[in-house]
């Protein structure tokens, strides 16, 4: 059954590569950030598969953190700063 895990891992790495192409090519900054989000979601899948393969439950904690912090990075990317600064 572990061959299935390897096949899924290979498939997710392929998806990662496709996202990488978009990161490197994407004409706008929004395309690149979006591809970074894709890499993050794919990374969550890869981390959970690795946690099964290596029998390390700690990697699921890493996956949860990755999911939460990807939102922080996207929010930092699209934040609109106040025009006037205080004092």
């Amino acid at each position, binding site marked *: 059954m572990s061959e299935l895990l390897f096949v899924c891992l290979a498939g997710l790495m392929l998806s990662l590569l496709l996202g990488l192409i978009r990161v490197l090519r994407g004409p706008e900054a929004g395309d690149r950030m979006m591809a970074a989000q894709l890499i993050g979601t794919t990374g969550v899948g890869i981390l959970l598969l690795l946690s099964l393969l290596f029998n390390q439950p700690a990697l*699921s904690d890493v996956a949860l953190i990755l999911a939460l912090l990807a939102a922080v990075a996207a929010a930092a990317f699209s934040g609109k700063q106040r025009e006037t600064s205080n004092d």
Partner: protein
Amino acid sequence: MIDVITLILMTTGLIFFLCGSIGLLRLPDLYSRLHALTKADNLGLGLLLTGIALYQQDLLFALKLVLIWLAVLAASSASAYLIAQYARRQETGR
């Protein structure tokens, strides 16, 4: 029996994932690419995680996987909205 279900779930999840990523490459516009990203990839991830939960057959781990999937769903939908908002601002601002 469980093995067959796990196989089907994980393969379907992988297919959805790859479709989403191919959509990210081939669709013409940033906004349409966001659709492919948020919908297809998150569904693929959910199917994959369900397969993983069945593979491991541990209730606590399965609950953790549900938590991770919900976090990814909520975070990526908000992120997609914010990225689209940013792109819109760039377009109308110029």
